């Protein structure tokens, strides 16, 4: 069955440029996991030797506002056009998107321009009037994880560690969470399409782990945009994450690898909330299941220090995972500030065990 699925996945590859990328940042990732994007740029530049441009002039794509029913389509379409214009000005034509919501937005705007060419013309006119800018459509537009997927073998070859439990010799059991907007909206823009997304599964396979194929594998994390943004509506969000945790729990995953900044955040934080409200924990011995992004896992395997890449900013402690992989770390440095400054440490939750 698995080999049959693999055959189907293999048919759903997409074009990913080899080099010279323009990097579009993520609002959630920069705030919630503030070391992740620097790590991504560092891996691309210093491990794979690629050129990727980080532009101070870019802004939010406004995707969270758009998907909350707050702004007109014409507005986000023109903001997207400005980002493309900035890419042109910087001399690039390959656009790499750090956020799955944004990735869905960029693809949606490109597809809308194809289906309704008059909207592209109106956008060009609006951008010109508002900013004086013009733009060319990117030659290649991919999600940030697509590039890591493309170079997964090279990363594996340069890694110091594997997704293997050094105590037992067994492959770690890894849950992948793709994020709805990676391929559910436009399947042909995702590696493996919507049915057999392989962008993260390919990393698990290449880096020594084993995939966990649990019933709710493709269910939404529960962001829900306006449903999370309002305190009164957050039951929607935590309910959907809980459905996934309950479904994956019997498979005893060692790790969740997430594609989307929002999903990473929700799968991390809702474990804390469920523990404190319901007394339920999903990891071993009262801990949670660590939730990491694709570049955080790449960074760990490549030998980056876990505290230099910001893993102390996750609510679910990562030490049980580090111990399994055999990664050495200094617990004394985890909660240091700049230049070793003593800035205290977070309070312990009452139920969720943390280090």
């Amino acid at each position, binding site marked *: 069955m698995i080999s049959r699925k693999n055959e189907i996945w293999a048919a759903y590859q997409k074009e990913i440029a080899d080099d010279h990328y323009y990097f579009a940042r993520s609002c959630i990732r920069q705030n919630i996991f503030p070391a992740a994007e620097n790590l991504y740029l560092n891996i691309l530049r210093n491990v794979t030797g690629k050129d990727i441009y980080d532009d101070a002039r870019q*802004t939010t794509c406004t995707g969270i506002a758009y998907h909350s029913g*707050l702004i007109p389509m014409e507005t986000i379409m023109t903001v997207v056009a400005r980002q493309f214009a900035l890419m042109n000005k910087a001399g690039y034509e390959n656009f790499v998107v750090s956020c799955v919501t944004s990735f869905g937005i960029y693809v949606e705007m490109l597809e809308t321009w194809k289906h*309704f060419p008059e909207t592209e013309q109106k956008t060009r006119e609006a951008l010109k009037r508002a900013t004086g800018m013009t733009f060319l459509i990117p030659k290649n537009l991919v999600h940030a994880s697509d590039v890591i997927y493309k170079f997964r073998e090279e990363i594996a070859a340069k890694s110091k560690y594997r997704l293997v439990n050094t105590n037992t010799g067994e492959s770690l059991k890894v849950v992948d969470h793709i994020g709805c907007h990676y391929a559910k*909206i436009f399947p042909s823009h995702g590696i493996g399409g919507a049915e057999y997304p392989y962008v993260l599964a390919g990393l698990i396979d290449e880096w020594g782990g084993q995939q966990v194929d649990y019933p709710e594998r493709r269910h939404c994390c529960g962001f829900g945009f306006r449903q999370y*943004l309002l305190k*009164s509506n957050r039951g*929607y969000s935590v309910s959907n994450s809980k459905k996934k945790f309950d479904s994956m729990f019997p498979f005893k995953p060692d790790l969740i690898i997430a594609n989307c900044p929002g999903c990473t955040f929700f799968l991390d934080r809702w474990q*804390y909330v469920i523990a404190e409200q319901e007394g339920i924990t999903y990891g071993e011995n009262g801990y949670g299941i660590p939730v990491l992004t694709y570049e955080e896992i790449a960074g760990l395997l490549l030998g980056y220090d876990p505290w230099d890449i910001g893993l102390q900013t*996750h*609510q679910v402690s990562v030490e049980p995972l580090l111990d399994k992989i055999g990664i050495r770390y200094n617990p004394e440095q985890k909660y240091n500030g700049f230049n070793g400054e003593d800035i205290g440490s977070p309070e312990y939750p009452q139920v969720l065990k943390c280090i």
Partner: protein
Amino acid sequence: MPTLYEELEKDVRYREGLKACFNCGVCTAICPAAEVSDYDPRRILNIVQEKDETALEELLKGDEIWRCGECLSCKTRCPRGNTPCYVIQALRGLSIETGFFIESEQGRKQLAIKRTVGDHILKYGYCVYIDEVDLEMYPEQGPVWNWLRENRLSLLHRLNTSYKKDQAGTLRNTNKESLEDLKRIFDETGGTQRFEKIERYSSIKAKELNMDFKEGKDEYFRYLYNR
């Protein structure tokens, strides 16, 4: 004066999202919102394609169109190539344009989203910004976030970000020119007018409910955000 349907048909998301629905209900079966709330995309698409103005007005004045989480799982699964979520997006836009959004408990919450995400975009150039995310409004952020936020100058420096700096990098200040570009784009494309409409209609509702309505996190905001 155009009918509500004529207004709806101007939206490309409506035209792209609804060709012909045969009411199989797959969208509702796959929908995370339908599982946890009183939300039924199959029913909504059926109302819309019947082109009944009265029923459409009821939809625009009701809670249901605001329950979608915009995960777009429905797009993948519809056997006829419809996208119920796109229809919802068009309905939400029309509900704000007509002012009907203040008639429902969920619809009127758009003011709280405008005063957080909407205002953050134009103030910071980000939808979400660390300075605005405190535990009172986001308690699920938990103790690690609280520690990070309280020590952000030191910690974000350790993590090599550009927080509060005028240079490229994580959490950099969005420069004045870029913020002005954003504002002009909003002015040019209806974003600013949309925000003004949300504020204007909301002030009417707040007065009706006898609540304090000024700006930011006033009494009406807190009522919408928390309840």
